[in-house]
């Protein structure tokens, strides 16, 4: 009998078999007979009028079949598309471009080299227009308008919490602190870029779209909504998300390239492939972050926090193409009271248009949770520093008490469970906190700068309960369908889509735990909208909290039916049966039982008369609440006073994601998440000059961490199961990216606080750190 590999088994991954042999099926691996290639002409200007597009030379290039521009698409009314936030995004412009590298025209050719030749041969006459890059300037009266169809550059105002009570707390506070924190624009940079193959079958009017998407079902519905007027209704659209080379949020939106490829396939009748190159990907795809936060805390001299007030400018670029639940234009930013027991809080966010690429997607985090965590965890240190309290002691003092759960935060979230002091204490013990503080003092006396930074974050993931959570009206449940075959093996299909998280391995473990069928006997499939049940996909750490729960519930439905069949086979009363993993037996007579495999066989060969045959179930899981993973991270840095280089000496991460399905995979997720927390803290930023020219259009300018810079992570865990999740799991893929940056910044500020430094913006490049030290006369000169 094969091993069950239920919850807690570090089962080796099923998906590895194809990947380590070079047999994965990524989008660029698809090749269809007669397939054409799409490449895209992009704007060199951040804002310009298109006077004329000259296509003659391109069309004269042997192998170039067509040049598609905005007016071409306008004939079919697909030149614009809705964003996930119900804003409008150009697929191709009719007459004006709004950001550098914006799509201007598509070139269709017989192979990718010829398509690139065609792009080079297209000549466009532009008339440059004034550019708005700075979101604060964009809000000034008389500022150049980014959008002709809007009254101003102000997109929306969103506020949450009790302003009056919060303001009063600030007026009466013994201590207040305030900092401006900028969390720069960054890019997920999955190693695989985005792309698709669109295949229109003119005979039956069916469209098959292989596409790098984290949310295939939602994409199918969006395509149906955009193209319904052309007769392309939803039953004729099949979206297939093949193996995906990393997503991290960047493969949630629909990009213009996808739509152009679909249009091109419909017009030519041939399959069309579009694959971004790295510059397309970095310069034009949705970005993450870009939040300008003014953060304030109020409290007492003894360190007790009372109120929080954040005001934020959110730079969305040319259109609000964020991927947030509809009701939350700033995502779940109102988790920003974090792990602390505030009496009152009030936050405001204003969305702004600028001449930059659109977005506001997550970078490996749930809807703006990183921005929230960064701000509160930084401000906790600012407050502790101001009153001269150790930041660990300060956190312990203000944590929501373990006995207070379920806990309703000042901004209205109901935290399901938590034990914050335990996680912080564990991290402190692992790293030797008290000894480090002594060492720090000794080092400073010798003129050496060392810092210790803490981040005790609380996440909010698993969107979400249908009462509050939808995207374009689609409720954010997710699904699992299980079919148990006559021989006791099974196939399970999901509405989510793995991008490296290992769903084929871990989902099978949940079902194995619930049904006692060995995980090796359970095939997991995702990503094909023709076969998988509807779900909103994989992002925001929602797969385990939502689809994972669906797997457990669908399994339990199967178990209920199995019990009836077992009662029939054993000629016993259902109530007299007991379940042990994989088997029903008669209470008091453990020998008299039927295994799930025997029951499955009977479901097809000998089921009770009057009962439906077969053994299968489907569940669309609507979570009763979100889940709240948390953790405490401690980072130790040494700063080179000659160069400004920050060296992360140690980094301890204690995570509590509830019950761990596969500890090996959980740790792998945390390693990766920490590295994507380290990256924006130290290296990554997409910036623009005053003319809207983007800096960082390749991996020589936009720096991803290599194995050399990446710290060696030390992991610890506590386990506080989610009380409302069927298996007590909470989600873990993003915790570390959310929690890590503040720990690193806090460590650097801690090392420099004796100079009067209270804040530093990320990325903390050597130059930035050196300049900060130099300003305070603290650099070492040769």
């Amino acid at each position, binding site marked *: 009998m094969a091993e069950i590999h239920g919850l807690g088994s570090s089962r080796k991954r099923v998906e590895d078999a194809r990947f*380590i042999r070079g047999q994965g099926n990524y989008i660029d691996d698809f090749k269809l007979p007669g397939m054409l290639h799409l490449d895209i002409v992009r704007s060199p200007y951040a804002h310009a009028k298109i006077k004329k597009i000259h296509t003659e030379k391109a069309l004269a290039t042997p192998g170039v079949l067509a040049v598609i521009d905005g007016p071409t698409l306008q004939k079919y009314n697909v030149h614009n598309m809705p964003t996930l936030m119900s804003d409008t995004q150009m697929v191709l412009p009719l007459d004006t471009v709004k950001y550098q590298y914006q799509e201007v025209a598509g070139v269709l050719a017989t192979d990718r080299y010829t398509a690139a030749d065609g792009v080079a041969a297209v000549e466009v006459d532009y008339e440059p227009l004034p550019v708005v890059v700075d979101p604060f300037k964009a809000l000034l009266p008389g500022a150049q308008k980014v959008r002709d169809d809007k009254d101003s550059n102000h997109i929306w105002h969103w506020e949450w919490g009790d302003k009056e009570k919060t303001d009063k707390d600030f007026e009466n506070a013994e201590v207040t602190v305030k900092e401006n924190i900028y969390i720069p624009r960054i890019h997920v*940079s999955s190693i695989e870029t985005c792309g698709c193959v669109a295949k229109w079958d003119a005979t039956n009017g069916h469209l098959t779209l292989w596409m790098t998407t984290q949310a295939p079902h939602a994409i199918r519905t969006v395509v149906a909504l955009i193209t319904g007027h052309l007769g392309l209704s939803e039953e004729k659209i099949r979206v297939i998300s093949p193996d995906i*080379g990393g997503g991290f949020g960047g493969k949630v939106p629909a990009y213009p390239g996808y739509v152009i490829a679909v249009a091109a396939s419909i017009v030519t009748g041939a399959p069309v492939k579009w694959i971004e190159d790295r510059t397309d990907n970095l310069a034009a795809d949705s970005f993450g972050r870009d939040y300008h936060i003014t953060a304030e805390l109020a409290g007492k001299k003894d360190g007790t926090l009372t109120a929080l007030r954040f005001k934020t400018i959110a730079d969305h670029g040319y259109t609000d193409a964020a991927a947030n639940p509809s009701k939350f234009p700033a995502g779940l930013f109102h988790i920003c009271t974090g792990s602390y027991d505030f009496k009152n809080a009030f936050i405001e966010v204003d969305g702004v248009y600028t001449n930059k690429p659109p977005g506001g997607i997550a970078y490996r985090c749930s809807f703006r949770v990183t921005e929230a965590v960064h701000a509160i965890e930084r401000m906790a240190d600012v407050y502790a520093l101001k009153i001269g309290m150790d930041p660990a002691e300060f956190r312990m003092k203000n944590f929501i008490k373990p006995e207070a759960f379920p806990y309703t935060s000042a901004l209205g979230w109901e935290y399901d469970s938590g034990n914050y002091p335990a996680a912080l204490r564990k991290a402190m013990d692992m790293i030797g906190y008290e000894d480090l503080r002594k060492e720090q003092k000794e080092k400073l006396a010798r003129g050496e700068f060392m810092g210790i930074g803490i981040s005790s974050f609380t996440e909010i993931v698993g969107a979400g309960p249908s009462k509050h959570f939808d995207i374009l009206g689609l409720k954010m449940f997710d699904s699992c369908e299980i079919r148990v075959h006559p021989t006791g093996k099974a196939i399970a299909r999901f509405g989510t889509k793995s991008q490296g998280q290992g769903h084929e391995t871990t989902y099978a473990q949940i079902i194995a735990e619930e049904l006692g069928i060995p995980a090796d006997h359970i095939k997991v499939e995702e990503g094909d909208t023709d076969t998988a049940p509807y779900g909103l996909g994989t992002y925001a750490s929602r797969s385990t909290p939502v689809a994972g729960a669906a797997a457990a519930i669908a399994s339990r439905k199967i178990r209920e039916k199995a019990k009836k069949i077992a009662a029939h086979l054993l000629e016993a009363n259902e109530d007299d049966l007991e379940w042990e993993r994989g088997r029903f037996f008669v209470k008091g007579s453990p020998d008299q039982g039927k295994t799930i495999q025997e029951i499955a066989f009977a479901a097809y060969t000998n089921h009770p008369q009057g009962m439906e045959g077969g053994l299968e179930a489907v569940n669309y899981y609507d979570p009763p609440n979100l889940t709240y993973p948390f953790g405490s991270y401690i980072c130790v840095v040494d700063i080179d006073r000659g160069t400004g280089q920050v060296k992360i000496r140690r980094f301890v991460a204690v995570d509590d994601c509830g019950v761990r399905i596969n500890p090996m995979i959980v740790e792998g997720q945390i390693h990766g998440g920490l590295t994507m927390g380290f990256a924006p803290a130290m290296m990554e930023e997409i910036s623009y000059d005053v003319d809207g020219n983007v800096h960082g259009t390749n991996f020589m300018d936009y720096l991803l961490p290599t194995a050399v810079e990446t710290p060696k992570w030390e992991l610890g865990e506590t386990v506080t199961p989610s009380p409302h999740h069927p298996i007590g799991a909470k989600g873990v893929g993003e915790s570390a990216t959310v929690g890590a940056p503040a720990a690193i910044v806090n460590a650097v500020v801690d090392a420099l606080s004796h100079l009067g430094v209270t804040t530093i913006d990320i990325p903390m490049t050597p130059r930035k750190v050196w300049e900060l030290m130099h300003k305070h006369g603290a650099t070492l000169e040769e």
Partner: protein
Amino acid sequence: MSTHHIQVTINGKVHEADVESRLLLVHLFRENLNMTGTHIGCDTTSCGACTVILDGKPVKSCTVFAVQADGSEIRTVEGLAQDGKLSAIQEGFHEKHGLQCGFCTPGMMMTTSALLEQNPHPTEDEIRHAISGNLCRCTGYMNIVKAVQYAADKMAEKVEV
């Protein structure tokens, strides 16, 4: 655009092709020979997803022309397993959870291959430097380092089979 007749040996098998002078080596594999195990991640020699072994040296095949490889011996991810048996490197990546999305993995394994041929007993620092031309966005490199160590140990027959 001129074309050239080239002959390359890939994973022990001789291939002949007429190629444009501008054809990149990675496209020779992927487009002309339908060997899609070697991936493209950046187009600028930065990410290493396209790493293959050319005459014993790891190269980024997005920055080598196919014609430059004329007459050479090439090894790609498809050649790692022998007679259906995984190599120690492939086994190491699987055993130590050295991959997640799998996109960087072929290049990472080929760099590992070259490293262990030159230095069968690398230290952790040597491993980290050797793979620093290969970007991975998923794993944080910790388990890749362990995978390489596993492979080194296995190749030295330290690991029980």
